């Protein structure tokens, strides 16, 4: 039907978990202008919905996401101007990536395949990555004369170390799942046929954790990454005070002492 909106991003909510899925398998989940709009809506909605406790970002088909949709640039009648390139990063990608990193719920990347360019930015902005053995992370900007973007200049050196990040940026070569796993960039590797099950198990487990404490962990880490050791510990101490006065803590301790499951 001509009026039907192309669902380039699909969202399924199940048991407290929002599955946000890049849904352009025929294009290796390339991200175009409509994808960005839909993805932004999906992330915002998931953040705001009280019923959503955990967010999973994944792709349909063989890729997680192949990055920016280059064909769209020419379909639109020519390349983006340099300023448009910058504006899309600042006004569209930045808010989405910031939201993933700072929202007070866990965000898991289920890497069903390669994550390239801005696709890699999304995978790396998540809190935890679970990937199939065929997955890889690639920053191929150098091959077309561009610089790293979408936050990877900040994320990759922190996740993989400066040397690995530079090698990826300079050569454009992929970081294979096994190597990424060894470096701690990817948390777990599971065969494709078990990926969703494994991520579902993890997400369900996290969805049952005390939500305020989960949020506090993210706030602590995000604050710490911008702070000195001393500032980070001070922030932690106040966060802990707030948490120590919470119902979650009271229930957690009572359950522990009574050797029963938490409510």
């Amino acid at each position, binding site marked *: 039907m001509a009026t039907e909106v192309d669902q380039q991003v699909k969202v399924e909510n199940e048991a407290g978990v929002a599955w946000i899925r890049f849904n352009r398998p025929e294009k290796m989940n390339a991200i175009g202008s409509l994808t960005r709009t839909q993805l932004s809506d999906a992330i915002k909605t998931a953040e705001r919905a009280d019923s959503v406790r955990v967010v999973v970002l994944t792709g349909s088909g063989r890729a997680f996401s192949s990055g920016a949709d280059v064909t769209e640039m020419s379909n639109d009648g020519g390349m983006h101007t340099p300023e448009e390139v910058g504006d899309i990063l600042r006004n569209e990608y930045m808010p989405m990536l910031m939201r993933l990193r700072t929202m007070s719920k866990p965000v898991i990347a289920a890497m069903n395949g390669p994550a390239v360019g801005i696709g890699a930015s999304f995978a790396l902005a998540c809190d935890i990555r679970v990937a199939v053995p065929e997955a890889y992370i690639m920053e191929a900007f150098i091959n077309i004369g561009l610089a790293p973007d979408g936050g990877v200049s900040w994320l990759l050196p922190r996740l993989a170390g400066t040397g690995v990040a530079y090698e990826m940026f300079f050569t454009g070569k992929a970081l294979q799942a096994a190597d990424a796993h060894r470096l701690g960039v990817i948390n777990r590797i599971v065969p494709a046929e078990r990926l969703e099950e494994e991520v579902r198990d993890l997400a369900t487990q996290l969805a049952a954790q005390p939500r305020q404490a989960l949020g*506090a962990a993210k*706030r602590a880490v995000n*604050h710490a990454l*911008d702070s000195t050791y001393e500032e980070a510990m*001070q*922030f932690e101490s*106040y*966060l802990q*005070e*707030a948490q120590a006065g919470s119902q979650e803590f009271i229930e957690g301790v009572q359950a522990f002492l009574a050797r029963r499951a938490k409510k």
Partner: protein
Amino acid sequence: MGYEHILVNVDTPVATITLNRPRVLNALSPELMREVNEALRTLESDETVRAAVLTGGPKVFAAGADIADMAERTAAEQLQRDQVGRWAGVSAFTKPLIAAVNGYALGGGCELALMCDMIIAGDNARFGQPEVNLGIIPGAGGTQRWPRTAGKFAAMETMLTGAQISARRAYELGLVNHVVPAEMSITVAQRIARQLSEKPPLALRFAKEAVLKAFETPMSEGLAAERRSFYFLFSTEDQKEGMRAFIEKRKGVFKGR
């Protein structure tokens, strides 16, 4: 005393004033500011109160003045009402006043925070002076207090672009003392206020006055005023008690005399 737009809680010796118009994000109407001034005047003369905290509660400090109230006013009306002049009571308060800022502190809200002696920001705090977008400029000290605190260039950017800054950025600019988890900002401010309450009140008062003078006078005049206050404090009982306690390795007990 009954207030309509604010809550005043005195947990001796610390008083907490909470802006309380959450439905309009604590918009600073003339009535609300009149109440803030009145409350501060009362606390000023209450000898049992040693320090105060000013907050907007857990979600928002104050998202500016009441735009709806101002939209159709003429310059003459604004001059006669002297809406902003009525804020003078905030800077006239001689005891320590600590702002606990969560969420938006915009326009007049930001200026109100800047009038306080210290600012404890929640990690969700946002500061800014968006007046330029409405065809006006800050009117409660923003253009003067920002450059004196954060420097000319940060002040200019804020005034000219109207863009907001995060708690973290405000901390980097020296605009706030500490960034703490939002749910703790009021507690932290009250705790600091309580610590200050145990210090000699007259010394606090003169220290506050001297620091504020640094923004008003040439250095030589400020130094002279500082020295006068320094010598004057040797005429107080609290100075004798403070120094004796120090020598005797015990904690001083101060009376404000």
